[in-house]
């Protein structure tokens, strides 16, 4: 009967203990780093390129401006002005609005305090770095990065990549045997985050430190100067947020509880065709 032919669910081992622990440590550290980072940004909500700040010409700024006697939040990107009242530049409950880059719900602490923001940021920066080094060391030595994350030749074929993109766009995900391994889009996204974006956060962060600049004088030039490093730090934080949004959408779309369980217990359920003699 057709009923009997239904796929069976089996639990497979998906994530190692190190992956799971470093993943959740990273969730905590990155959340706190992002929110305390926005607090620090708010101390001078303007970004520049180069070594120094040309105060009259930031490429991005969030300000309060008076329009017809009424305060408005104005975000300027590359010379274009956007009214962002309530979100960027001028936010808070009606009647209690204040001038601030990012709104209170996005920062740690929620009230304005550069000193507390820095305390949170630099403490969790250390946690993030130690956690990241453990992940990368184990990932390279133990083969996780080579075996699980590095795409193979067949996956890198253009036709295959396009196929994956079109199925993902329709929220159709690999099933059965295929689901045992990461697909090429997952691999690409994870590698970009763990080998490019997260290390870039550390390097641009260090490049903003006058003490570190004296120790390693030329790193700052890679980012076009100290203000360039601050801009790249901000942009790559934005890309990480974008990754997290897509990541969470994909987690929900491809089976919320199965995915969350696999990152907690390590076990992931896949559907396999029953063997012929099982009938």
């Amino acid at each position, binding site marked *: 009967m057709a009923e009997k032919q239904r796929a069976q669910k089996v639990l497979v081992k998906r994530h190692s203990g190190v992956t799971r622990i470093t993943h959740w440590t990273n969730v905590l550290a990155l959340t*706190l780093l992002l*929110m305390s980072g926005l607090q*620090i*940004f708010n*101390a*001078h909500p*303007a970004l*520049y390129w180069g*070594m*120094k*700040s*040309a*105060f*009259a010409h930031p490429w991005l700024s969030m300000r309060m401006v008076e329009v017809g006697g009424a305060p408005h939040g104005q975000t300027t990107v590359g010379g274009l002005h956007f009214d962002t009242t309530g979100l960027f530049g001028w936010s808070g409950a009606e009647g209690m609005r204040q001038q601030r880059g990012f709104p*209170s*719900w996005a920062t*740690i*602490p*929620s*009230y304005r*305090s*550069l*000193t*507390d923001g*820095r*305390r*949170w940021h*630099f*403490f969790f*920066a*250390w946690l993030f770095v130690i956690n990241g080094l453990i992940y990368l060391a184990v990932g390279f030595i133990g083969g996780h990065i080579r075996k699980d994350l590095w795409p193979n030749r067949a996956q890198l074929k253009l036709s295959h990549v396009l196929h994956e993109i079109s199925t993902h766009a329709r929220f159709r995900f690999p099933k059965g045997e295929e689901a045992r391994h990461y697909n090429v889009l997952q691999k690409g996204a994870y590698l970009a985050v763990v080998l490019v974006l997260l290390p870039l956060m550390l390097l641009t962060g*260090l490049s*903003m*430190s*006058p*003490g*570190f*600049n*004296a*120790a*390693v*004088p030329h790193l*700052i030039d890679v980012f076009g100067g*100290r*203000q360039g490093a*601050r801009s790249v730090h901000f942009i790559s934080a934005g890309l990480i947020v974008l990754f997290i949004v897509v990541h969470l959408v994909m987690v929900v779309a491809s089976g919320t509880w199965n995915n969350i369980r696999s990152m907690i217990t390590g076990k992931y359920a896949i559907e396999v065709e029953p063997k012929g003699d099982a009938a």
Partner: protein
Amino acid sequence: MSLTANRRRWLGVAGATLGSLWLSACDRLTNDPKFAGVLQKAEGLTQRAQRLVTDRKALAREFTPADISPDFKPNGTIRPQDDEYVALLGNNFADYRLTVDGLVEHPQSLTLAEVRGLPSRTQITRHDCVEGWSSIGKWKGARLATLLDRAKLKPTARYIVFHCADTLEETLDGTGQYYESIDLVDAYHPQTILAYEMNDATLPVAHGAPLRLRVERQLGYKQAKYVMRIEAVDRLDQLGRGKGGFWPDRGYEWYAGI
């Protein structure tokens, strides 16, 4: 259909509730002295790590005249209102004396002309404010190391404190006077100077006339302006509110290398 709408609304409310719980938990932790103490541990780690990878004499980058900021931003006190300073300024600092005392063998009292007569150094460096912006300026000043050698530090001296003329905050206990301090590694660094010229002109009042400290491997708030007295000490906890500087007393890191 209404089930989905309900579910969405429920998820929205749950998300908002969790979010505000998270925020108030973070605010509460920020104000908990024990937790704040744990967060502060990172400062010592950062200082040790930076000192470990940095040569004692490693220089901060120096720039060319073309790099100088036309819009170098003055911050903190821009024009001290303190009577003593106003009087000194009124006389164009003719009565100014730089005091060097504390744990030294030979306390000093120098006129501005005497400070200008000391071995000098000129450097074009970047000033990084803790707020996030940077400006580049050219500084000429007396090397602090020469001055300290002349006063001869006692072996017990561990920090150099800079007492300033400006009151940045009105307080009842007088802890609103600006001051800063550095350790001997930074005090003897070749780029550590008491600047009396900025961008080839006499140091303007907004930038700390007549003398401002430059400690080029640290953030802007360490660059004490309106320096009146240099004191060698063995501990910082008896000055101001005990943290070694006006801004450190208000929660900022004493070691401002990052």
